[in-house]
């Protein structure tokens, strides 16, 4: 053949084939590197989750002492005129409930052990009685929280002098870690044995309601305006740049805004969900606008033309045809934005939502804190008990976030590109 007479083509020389081996080796290395990079991220995620779960599970428990109490002999009564739980507990306190408890504890645990029943244990018992008055006519076996010192000793650190006592009580079956359902219903406290997450959770819920109520309508309407009606001019450009920039501005800047503007207008509402929600709404709104615009852009023009052709006004076209079709996409973006707001701490730190809030907030204007802030506050505490409680709070927060993100991913996959 004519070609063969020429020199061998460069792509068929042995040297080429030798180089080929090296190129394939580099290909393999590259691929392994890529896989390694992504597995690293996955490993960090798994490590984070496992780490939090392991140390957090302890946070849903607390160390408690078994104390049988015989209320039949105690002579406690619930006054008929007590209006609510708080008054019942106060009345019981006046009648000597704390002494009844400490006496029973001494009987059951000995003097030393009784010293380590939590100082506030009688209050928890009082609340139980308020919920179920028939207890007063019974002998009941109660499990009461220990002092933080004994809890540490039982966990194997803290005061070494207490460890023999803890071991002894545990051997007698009087001391153990028990599931603490109250963690989900109580609010912040100074004693890790008595803290709960409900206060912060409720604060988060109230804050998120404000955020959603402001950011969703404003975000959707702004997206509609920009995508459907905005003329092409300098103003529109300015709005666009503003929104895109706001979506990328550090969250702490919104805190400075909230501090300088909202707290100047409403000075009395420092650390109220209302102000927190407003601040987070400004941060969430651009996210919703951007997601909304993309969703609206994805609605094919043929649908608009069809509706216009049968005589619908531009407003009707948008609200009857475009918006419903774009809604899944908008919702996905909203959920993601809300999830970000739910996990946000920095701006709220600046507007003062870091108060110590011992009772769950009652309204949008009462003092409140939020879940991530509670985590931050607890993480600063040195007591051993708070470490576990912090991880438990993180688990609660992550569960909420995972649910929200999962919902968003589900919505996106479900409704993606139907046309």
């Amino acid at each position, binding site marked *: 053949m004519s070609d063969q007479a020429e020199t061998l083509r*460069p*792509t068929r020389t042995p040297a*080429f084939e030798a180089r*080929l081996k090296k*190129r*394939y080796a580099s290909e393999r290395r590259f691929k392994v590197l890529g896989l390694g990079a992504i597995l690293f991220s996955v490993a960090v995620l798994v490590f984070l989750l496992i780490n939090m779960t392991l140390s957090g599970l302890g946070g849903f428990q607390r160390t408690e002492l078994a104390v049988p109490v015989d209320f039949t002999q105690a002579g406690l009564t619930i006054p008929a005129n007590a209006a609510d739980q708080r008054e019942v507990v106060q009345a019981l306190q006046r009648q000597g409930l704390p002494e009844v408890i400490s006496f029973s504890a001494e009987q059951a645990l000995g003097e030393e052990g009784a010293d380590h029943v939590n100082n506030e244990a009688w209050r928890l018992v009082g609340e139980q009685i308020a919920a179920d008055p028939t207890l007063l006519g019974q002998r009941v076996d109660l499990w009461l929280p220990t002092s933080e010192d004994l809890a540490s000793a039982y966990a194997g650190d803290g005061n070494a002098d207490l460890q023999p006592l803890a071991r002894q009580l545990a051997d007698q079956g009087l001391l153990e870690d028990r599931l603490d359902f109250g963690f989900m219903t109580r609010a912040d406290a100074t004693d890790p044995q008595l803290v709960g997450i409900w206060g912060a959770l409720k604060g988060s819920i109230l804050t998120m309601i404000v955020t959603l109520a402001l950011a969703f309508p404003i975000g959707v309407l702004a997206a509609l305006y920009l995508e459907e009606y905005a003329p092409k001019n300098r103003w529109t450009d300015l709005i666009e740049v503003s929104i895109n920039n706001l979506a990328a501005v550090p969250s702490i800047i919104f805190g400075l805004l909230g501090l300088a503007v909202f707290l100047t207008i409403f000075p009395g509402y420092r650390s109220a969900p209302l102000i927190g929600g407003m601040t987070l709404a400004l941060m969430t709104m651009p996210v919703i606008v951007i997601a909304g615009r993309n969703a609206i852009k994805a609605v094919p023009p043929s649908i608009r033309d069809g509706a216009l052709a049968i005589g619908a006004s531009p407003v009707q076209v948008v609200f009857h045809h475009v918006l419903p079709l774009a809604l899944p996409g908008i919702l996905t973006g909203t959920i993601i934005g809300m999830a970000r707001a739910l996990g946000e701490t920095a701006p709220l730190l600046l507007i003062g939502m870091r108060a110590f809030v011992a009772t769950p907030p009652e309204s949008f204007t009462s003092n409140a804190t939020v879940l991530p802030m509670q985590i931050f506050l607890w993480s600063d505490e040195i007591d051993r008990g708070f470490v576990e409680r912090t991880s438990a709070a993180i688990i609660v927060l992550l569960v909420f976030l995972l649910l929200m993100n999962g919902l968003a991913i589900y919505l996106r996959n479900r409704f993606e590109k139907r046309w």
Partner: protein
Amino acid sequence: MSDSETQAADAELGLSNPSGKSLEHENVEVGEPKMRARDVDVFYGDKKAIDSVSIDIHTEFVTAFIGPSGCGKSTFLRALNRMNDTIPSAKVTGCIELDGEDIYASGMDVVQLRARVGMVFQKPNPFPKSIYENIAYGPKIHGLVESKTDLDEIVEKSLRRAGLWEEVKDRLEDSGTALSGGQQQRLCIARAIAVEPEVILMDEPCSALDPIATAKIEELIDELRGRYGIVIVTHSMQQAARVSQRTAFFHLGNMVEYGHTSDIFTNPREKRTQDYITGRYG
């Protein structure tokens, strides 16, 4: 190879030429086919896009694939240098040989295969790099050059062969994407020949170009013939008639007819071919 052998090969492919007159190429000495495809099927998932196609590609002449849109020309072309590997759902069965080696055999190396069987696409796709780097890319990744002067030489030679040298020799550092469409396509051809392939597959190389640019490319194809086996997919009957010596007509995944270009256009055996070239459909 003797004439009678060629005829035997032709007969095997159903390429009958009873009169023995192979028109303008009577005096061309025909060797072993460069590529040989036998009973090739291509599937996209469960869908069969190519049904039992057999064809030979010779270095001595340009082969044109014609046929209505969607009949599988591109699909078959991409099977020839395994570009179909990049489509996850695509599957090729049957046998395609390059110089007698099965290109789908496990011993065949895709990288080397593609270096030997180059491809030019419908839309010019220069890399967003300088003109020089566009040409140098192939020789560099394959390590074909030792020194910068060698590389300069290859770049100049390839651009000259593609007929682009005079137009760009003063602006080699400009971006390849800054050229006109026709220049971009010639750049892509230059890029393909810079690695000295044995076969060049061209998928509608002129469909995005104006008549003058098209004429330049056709000229170029004619000059490259003999040195490279060339396959060109085209929608233009005139173009097929102008540049090719062999034509294959595809229809609905089948190769309906293959033969000397002049025969196909003046004297097709199949009714479907006749209908197509007279413009009755497609």
